[in-house]
């Protein structure tokens, strides 16, 4: 791998992963906010309005960071991946331009209204929230349609000069790959948002602050989180794994750590891939489970890595394997945690169970890790292809942007995003410390407020 290619890849991976920390919350939160504002509209309940206003503040902060970190991604297609842009622009240019035209204007215009919401009636606020929800989810749809085409190219033809062009717009937008990818990804955003909402609620209950709001946060977060984390595994996670084994079997073999083709293939829960011996070290394995999951048949043959030429293997196998196992492991833990929390909520125990509240509070960062690991699985597993089966990643870079330039800008992004991360944590903790607007401010907090 030449160094420019490495820096180009690292820069895109880093800026995309960092960017996606923000939209994954805003997309999920948009759905929860729509629920909250609908309740305000239907019942006129001021309590729910305070809850919605509080989360609108967090939404706006996240949205802002999402916007400023999102612009570099579109630019980088051209700056660092010029040959890819030239090659595939005739296809993915469609979905990216549609995202700009249909989603970005919708989001930015109605967020402008919502930020200055005190001028508007509840009906307008509800409508703006609905439009924000539509805008953020549409944006997700178009970006995923772009990625789905890179994972599973459809509706294209190769022209005489070797570039690809779209042959059917509807075919591009209804890529069979897209269905499970979209449902899985968007459900994940709801898990992230639910987890964060529940965690802030748990924090307030543990501190004894803003109890009425905190309980609403917990109720909303736990119910939504339980539903969403269940849907993550079945059917959306299962659907995704199915299509990987169907269309990208080498990716599936790589992330499961299946080096050799076998019947009664086992499922590794844990263990380390060893590239010297081509085995999994120290495995904990469920015998036959992979054959059953993929083909619903214990004796079915699952293709291992040995069934594919070495130059079609993903080029960072251990990272891919670990990323997939981190995602799947965390996904399972979320189901357990939210399951227990849901039962406790239903029985009326949740608000007194300190240990469970601690777990819910500390859980907040983990959906971010799971989502990042999930995307690493999808993207590392696509290697060595940039467009699956059509264009290798090494063929996509900018021919005249040399490694020094790419390294310089990569370091610049690292420094700048470190600053952004610090600022974000500072400001979000400030919003949480200030709490939702309330008349019954607890004693500790009231003292704190007069001090500031």
């Amino acid at each position, binding site marked *: 791998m030449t160094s420019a290619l490495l820096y180009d890849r690292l820069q895109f991976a880093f800026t995309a992963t960092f960017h996606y920390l923000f939209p994954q919350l805003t997309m999920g939160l948009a759905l929860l906010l729509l629920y909250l504002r609908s309740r305000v509209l239907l019942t006129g309940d001021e309590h729910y309005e305070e809850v919605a206003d509080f989360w609108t503040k967090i939404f706006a902060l996240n949205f802002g960071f999402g916007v*400023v970190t999102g612009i570099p991604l*579109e630019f980088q297609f051209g700056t660092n991946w010029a040959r890819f842009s030239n090659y595939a*622009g005739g296809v993915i240019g469609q979905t990216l331009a549609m995202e700009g*035209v249909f989603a970005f204007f919708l989001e930015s215009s109605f967020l402008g209204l919502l*930020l200055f919401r005190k001028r508007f009636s509840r009906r307008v606020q509800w409508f703006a929230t609905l439009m924000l929800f539509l805008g953020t989810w549409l944006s997700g749809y178009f970006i995923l349609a772009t990625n789905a085409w890179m994972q599973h190219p459809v509706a294209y033809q190769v022209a005489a000069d070797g570039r690809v062009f779209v042959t059917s717009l509807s075919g591009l937008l209804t890529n069979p790959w897209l269905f499970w990818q979209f449902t899985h990804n968007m459900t994940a955003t709801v898990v992230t948002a639910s987890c964060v909402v529940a965690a802030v609620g748990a924090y307030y209950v543990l501190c004894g602050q803003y109890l009425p709001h905190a309980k609403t946060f917990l109720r909303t977060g736990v119910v939504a989180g339980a539903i969403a984390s269940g849907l993550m595994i079945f059917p959306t996670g299962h659907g995704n794994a199915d299509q990987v084994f169907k269309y990208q079997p080498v990716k599936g073999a790589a992330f499961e750590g299946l080096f050799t083709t076998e019947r009664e293939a086992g499922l590794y829960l844990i263990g380390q891939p060893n590239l010297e011996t081509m085995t999994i070290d120290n495995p904990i394995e469920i015998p036959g489970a992979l054959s059953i999951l993929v083909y619903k048949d214990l004796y079915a043959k699952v293709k291992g890595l040995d069934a594919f030429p070495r130059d079609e293997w993903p080029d960072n196998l251990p990272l891919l394997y670990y990323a997939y196992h981190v995602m799947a492991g965390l996904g399972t833990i979320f189901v357990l945690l939210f399951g227990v929390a849901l039962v406790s909520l239903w029985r009326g125990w949740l608000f007194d169970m300190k240990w469970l509240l601690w777990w819910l509070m500390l859980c907040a960062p983990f959906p971010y890790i799971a989502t990042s690991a999930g995307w690493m699985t999808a993207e590392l597993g696509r290697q060595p292809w940039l467009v699956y089966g059509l264009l290798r990643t090494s063929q996509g870079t900018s021919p005249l942007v040399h490694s020094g330039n790419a390294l310089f800008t990569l370091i610049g992004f690292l420094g700048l995003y470190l600053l952004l991360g610090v600022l974000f944590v500072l400001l979000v903790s400030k919003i949480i410390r200030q709490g939702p607007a309330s008349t019954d401010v607890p004693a500790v907090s009231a003292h704190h407020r007069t001090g500031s």
Partner: protein
Amino acid sequence: MEMAWFIIVTVMLAMYVVLDGFDFGVGMIYPFVARTEADRRTALASIGPVWNANEVWLIAAGAVLFFAYPKAYAAGFSGFYLALILVLWLLIFRGLALELRAQVDHVLWKQGWDTAFATSSVLLAIVFGTALGNLIRGVPLNRDGYFFVPFWTDFRPGSDPGILDWFTVLLGLTCTVILAFHGANYLAMKTEGVLHQRAVSVAWIVGWVSVGCTALTVIAVPMVQPSLSLSFSRNPAVYLAPLIGVIALGYSLYFRFRRRDTSAFLAGSVFIFLMLVSVMFGMYPYILVSTTDQALSLTVFNASTDSYGLTAGVSWFVGGFLLILIYQIYLHSQFLGKTRSDDVH
């Protein structure tokens, strides 16, 4: 079809400059005209609900360029690598300044973001003007259709140019003063009292500087890029666009003098829009002109996607564009008139 998308990209870019241009202008004059905290809040609130939606025109125009002319997008974005990454970093700082300033109540926090806002606004205006200069002057495209320009070479627009030379710097400065004028007109329209008075005085000064810079640019362009005036002389009817543009600038100054703020702002917008349209028309059919060999230039024909893609694009773009107009008109109509002092979120 190739021409239709050229017009669409032109209109979107011109919309971007007219709309985001005024909030860049507000950023540039902000430290001078808004001296108290109350004035600064009012100035920021005047662009608060709209700047983000304005910026989207840039993103959308970039994406449409990518879609319609992938080859030009690939060549241009990788060729101006350093300048574009600089643009990204400046856009990040500017966005942060606008979003974060109100979040913490501390004098140093506010001063820091004020500086970031003003500096990034000026630098971005210079870079965008310089970029326009680079497009007019041309770039050293190679046989594969790529190029890479350093920040500067010998500051002369020859066959081996840098991003900065005397011509592109002149365009950078022209762009900056014109946007300062535009922003001052906007602020004068949206505010009252001392802030309004200061915005009016600034607008009056930079308005005349804009006239001078525009004149210099109009003289310089045919010297650097003769083909631009050629396409005008081939089709003299389009002389109307720059002509009306210049008249609009004159009217803008006249309205400024008569203290008709809204008219001055609108006339200035017409001037900016028509000047960009004139340049783009003069360039047609070239998107990127080669400084080494005219035959290597990228045109709307050799850089575009295929005809199915362009036609399919029209089918969704028409509806999408109408929706954009509806959102934008609705948004701006909600915040018409003077910015209210309680308009702080």
